[in-house]
């Protein structure tokens, strides 16, 4: 299956919802509108045999208007074709539709993404933290939480490019 086949298939229905097509990455990457992400993935699954959800994770770009992103990796096992879908949301309204009714495997992946980035998956049956403790009141993988304590003065490694 060629990249062009996938793009041609999606364009008539989702032309306004596909914001960017990137073929320079290792696999075909689409940046889509977060409101249409689920529909696009459902179409890919039902019409183009991308029935395997390989991976789902979050990412944070603090300098962007829509800071938080969800990255889906789908796999068409019949044609051995992978595709990457990205959808971005704002930090104030971090909502994306849950894929749990399409892929049972999305359940924990979405919980992990919620746990790390605070992205809310609407329609998720049990959206609560999975790896961190329940009473944690922040989302640790966001970039505003540096790994090391910023108040420490005994460690200064700015000369080492960090």
């Amino acid at each position: 299956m060629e990249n062009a086949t996938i793009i041609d298939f999606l364009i008539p229905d989702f032309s306004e919802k596909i914001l960017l097509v990137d073929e320079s990455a290792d696999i075909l990457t689409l940046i889509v509108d977060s409101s249409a992400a689920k529909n696009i993935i459902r179409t890919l699954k039902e019409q183009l045999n991308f029935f395997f959800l390989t991976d789902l994770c979050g990412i944070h770009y603090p300098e962007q208007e829509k800071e938080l992103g969800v990255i889906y990796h789908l796999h068409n096992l019949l044609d051995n074709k992978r595709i990457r879908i990205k959808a971005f949301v704002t930090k104030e309204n971090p909502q994306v539709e849950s894929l749990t009714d399409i892929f049972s495997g999305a359940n924990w992946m979405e919980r992990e993404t919620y746990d790390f980035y605070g992205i809310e998956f609407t329609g998720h049956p049990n959206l609560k933290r999975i790896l961190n403790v329940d009473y944690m009141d922040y989302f640790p993988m966001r970039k505003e939480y540096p790994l090391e304590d910023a108040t420490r003065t005994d460690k200064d490694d700015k000369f080492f490019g960090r």
Partner: protein
Amino acid sequence: MNNDDNKNSIEEPKSYNTLNLGPTHPATHGIFQNVLTMDGEKIVDAEQTIGYIHRAFEKIAERRAYYQITPLTDRMNYCSSPINNIGWHLAVEKLLGVETNKRIDYMRIIAMELARIADHLVCNSVIGVDSGALTGFVYVFQEREKINEVYEELCGARLTTHLGCIGGFERDITPKAISKIRTVMKSLPKVLHEFENLLMRNRIFMDRTINVGGISAERALNYSFTGPCLRAAGVDYDVRVMEPYSSYQDFDFVVPVGQNGDTYDRFCVRQTEMWESIKLINNALENLPEGKFNMEVPAFFMPPKEQVYSQMEPLISHFKKVMGEIDIPAKEIYQAVEGGNGELGFYIVSDGGRTPYRVHFRRPCFIYYQAFPEMVRGALLSDAILTLSSMNVIAGELDA
């Protein structure tokens, strides 16, 4: 109204018991909890709680240079660390656009297949233990010990191996290592045969594992299963065949598949995979090409220590690499390898800095352990124990 209906109508509503299996229970082989709702000895529902050893590897990785992330990968699936290490190295090489030569590829295949054997030996012998057969476990561990000795010879470590480096290996495979591998390859078939004789046609073992913890191919795919758990359900998906890496395409090997997706099939798939791994290792050893054992990746290849201690240029180069003054392309990649448990994926987003902007590890058992309640509903407690061990849930990989 017959008597039976009458009886039902006056019966009290059923009350269920709650049973905590774990977090530290000998039968879970790791730190994770299962809260089981029990109707007598039958499981009505299960809920898992994980995260007891979560170490925030993805966050830590964002602060580390690429070569410093290898020790984090060791600690995911610690039963087969070399696969994790080499998978990470392959991912970074893909990011850098480095191609390795055949000698490195074959050496990697040897290390990875040894790791697969070690992983499957542990998993399958533990299935035996959970069904009450301790002998096999003790017996096959001698072979695992020999494999650990091979790692020791290859890289100096046994469990958290940190095997190899970006671009190949730190040192060449030594004649002593080759002789140790040959020793394992000679003794392992006999051990595997005896282990199979002990369990595979054993009436008790078959009764305890056949039709226990089964899952259909359709459900397994929907749950994003990979590896032996998916193949046991009858889906012929192996990353080594679908997207060959490290010259796997040079070798002929069979990908075993099961039919029912139950505990017995998972056991048999792993057992057959070990035979295939033996073939692969023997082939790779026999055809091991001559050549360099490290591709001198400019950004990562550390100069030999004797030069660092005696010459200025290697010293500067060493310093620059350790401090990360290197050019990494700003792009994103996904690299998958066939781990002991299934598709182990590394998703790296690089912004060109010395550390990755974002790393995500696709840990196979994190993804498929969520199917556990579905697989044990209606089963006995003792079946749940066997299902759990046959899924090969490794706490380090689960929590990362």
